[in-house]
């Protein structure tokens, strides 16, 4: 049952349009987050801010393969997923400002982005706590005969939680259409993979549940895209879950309070050499699919989108304090 993809890097078929699209998506995330970090130091954004910089290929490569009607769940490090999924940049930024125009009305903040239209079910900040939710969402679809895929992102750290075990077993046992995407960035906060797992080949764990699994170069958006395409196609046709381990790396600190004592600068530099954006640019150029002009054009577009997002957030309003006790219970009539 186990399929091990480990695709040769950057050999996947790609045309200009698709290449530009993937690059655009990754740049949107990168520039948005760079801006967020800046705004954090200006204290416009508060609380915890977990950046995805370096890992963009994972969310972008996977999300490409999902239909608008599919379900997505992510962690507290989910700006990338939200943007790639199509949640508006302004709504995400406003959320981080704590404005009521935010995608979760300012109640959630960076760790709890939600969006109904794109079926983006958070933004979950209990590590591993959203894994059982994915099982249930997929179960609902299966029971109704809806041909949706539930795609869930989680980290290497989450794999040690009991919820991982329970959720993988349940989804395999019940043959549920879930795509588990493990973003293995080699650290859970400051704890290295080797200090978290007796077996560090995380894809191997899927075998304990008889689940199809693949380890993929998570710094390569084409590889991610191809692997996820195979997985999503299989899930949509066969109904059984898949597990993808995306081997990736976060370039920044765990959150904004992190002295990064637990890893060597040289290690970070090495991985920066594998920057998914630069890698894609290199490939596309090598294949003569894009020019520097194209890149500048994209950067310009992205710059405008980020600026507009920030403006939207700045222009946003504060939810009245009198509304504090709303949304503890549902206000509308019974469904």
């Amino acid at each position, binding site marked *: 049952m186990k399929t091990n993809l480990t695709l040769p890097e950057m050999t996947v078929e790609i045309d200009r349009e698709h290449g530009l699209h993937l690059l655009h998506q990754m740049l949107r995330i990168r520039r948005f987050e760079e801006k967020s970090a800046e705004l954090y130091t200006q204290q416009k954004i508060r609380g915890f801010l977990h950046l995805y910089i370096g890992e963009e290929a994972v969310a972008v490569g996977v999300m490409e393969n999902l239909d608008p009607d599919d*379900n997505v769940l992510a962690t507290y490090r989910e700006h990338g997923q939200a943007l790639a999924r199509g949640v508006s940049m302004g709504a995400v930024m406003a959320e981080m400002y704590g404005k*009521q125009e*935010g*995608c*979760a*009305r*300012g*109640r*959630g903040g960076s760790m*709890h982005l*939600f*969006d*109904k239209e794109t079926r983006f*079910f*958070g*933004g*979950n900040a*209990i590590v591993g*706590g*959203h*894994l*059982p*939710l*994915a*099982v*249930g*969402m*997929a*179960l*609902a*679809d299966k*029971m*109704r005969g809806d041909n949706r895929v539930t795609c869930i992102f989680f980290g290497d750290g989450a794999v040690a939680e*009991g*919820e991982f075990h*329970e*959720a993988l*077993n*349940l989804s395999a*046992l019940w043959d549920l259409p879930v795509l588990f995407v493990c973003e293995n960035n080699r650290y859970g906060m400051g704890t290295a993979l080797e200090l978290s797992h007796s077996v560090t080949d995380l894809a191997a764990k899927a075998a304990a549940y008889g689940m199809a699994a693949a380890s993929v170069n998570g710094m390569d958006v084409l590889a991610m895209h191809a692997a996820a395409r195979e997985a999503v196609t299989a899930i949509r046709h066969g109904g059984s879950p898949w597990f993808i381990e995306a081997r990736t790396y976060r370039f920044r600190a765990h959150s904004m309070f992190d002295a990064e004592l637990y890893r060597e600068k040289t290690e970070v530099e090495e991985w920066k050499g594998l920057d998914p954006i630069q890698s894609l640019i290199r490939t596309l150029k090598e294949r003569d699919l894009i020019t520097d002009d194209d890149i500048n054009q994209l950067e310009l577009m992205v710059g405008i989108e980020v600026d507009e997002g920030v403006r939207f957030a700045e222009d946003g309003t504060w939810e009245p304090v009198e509304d504090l006790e*709303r*949304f*503890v*219970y*549902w*206000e*509308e009539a*019974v*469904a």
Partner: protein
Amino acid sequence: MITKTKPNNLLVTPGVETYTLTYREAVREAMREAMLRDERVFLMGEDVGNYGGCFAVSMGMLEEFGPMRVRDTPLSESGFTGAGIGAALNGMRPIVEVMTCNFSLLAMDQIVNNAATILHMSGGLFNVPLVIRTATGGGKQLAAQHSHSWEGWYAHVPGLKVIAPATVEDARCMLWTALEDPNPVMIFENSLLYNLKGEIPVDPQPIDIDKARIRRYGDDISIITFGRSLFKVLDAAEILAEEGIECEVIDLRSLRPLDDETYIDSVVKTNRALVVDEGWKSVGISAEISARIMEQAFYDLDMPVERVCGVEVPIPYAKHMEEASLPQVEDIAAAVRRMVDHG
């Protein structure tokens, strides 16, 4: 002043045609009705299917509804409770059965950090119409990992609704209301009530899940309780009535939200209040009731509110020790006598 009706006022709508069944059958009938009525409803939990339910509540339902809708789960409380939350988020109306509430501690993170929180955290976008049914209470000599009462504890958590049906009619009729509720509702069924027989209307209607009920009228003291303790309190009230003490007995039914009006009005009338809960006293629901009476009816009190609760020990196995650890009819009667004698 409310006029007295028959002493044990266990039926919500008196005067209608009724028949008798057990609490267990009532819960089963309620689940069957819900599954027949709404195809989004399904039942999921340990041994609900092939075994027929740990307390035989769902006996026969697997045969009737099939394994898709009556779903035996692995031993994975966090996993399947979370799956219930996910299914609810995605349009279903799951009933998750957690065999006993002691095991729900394994699913605590899912219940508190997800079910109770997602609506708020998402700024009102996503609600969780989930019903969790679970058995509660001591009295079967099952010792310290199988006998505790956690309903009062869960009542601390905003975002949850917590109900504790005591009567057969409530067991039969509150489930549908709970399933229609757009919020997560936890239903605590005291396992010693499953064999209880009671009357329900021939044509049961959904009934509210947020109102307390006066189960017996009286002027001398208000006794506020719920769940299985209701029957101990009613028994005590019977004994006390023979001694000339008229107790007003309030069945809370819902522990979150609390229906302040019903019990406060009663205390304003009787000027004395006793809270009875088989759960532990400290930081329990009995404390909250006492504090609210303090806040809302202090000047109507002739004396301090008292509490008769479970003794603060993990429940022991030996019968005499377990009995001593739980409030008994005589403890309740003695407390009332002391309080009424007092002034």
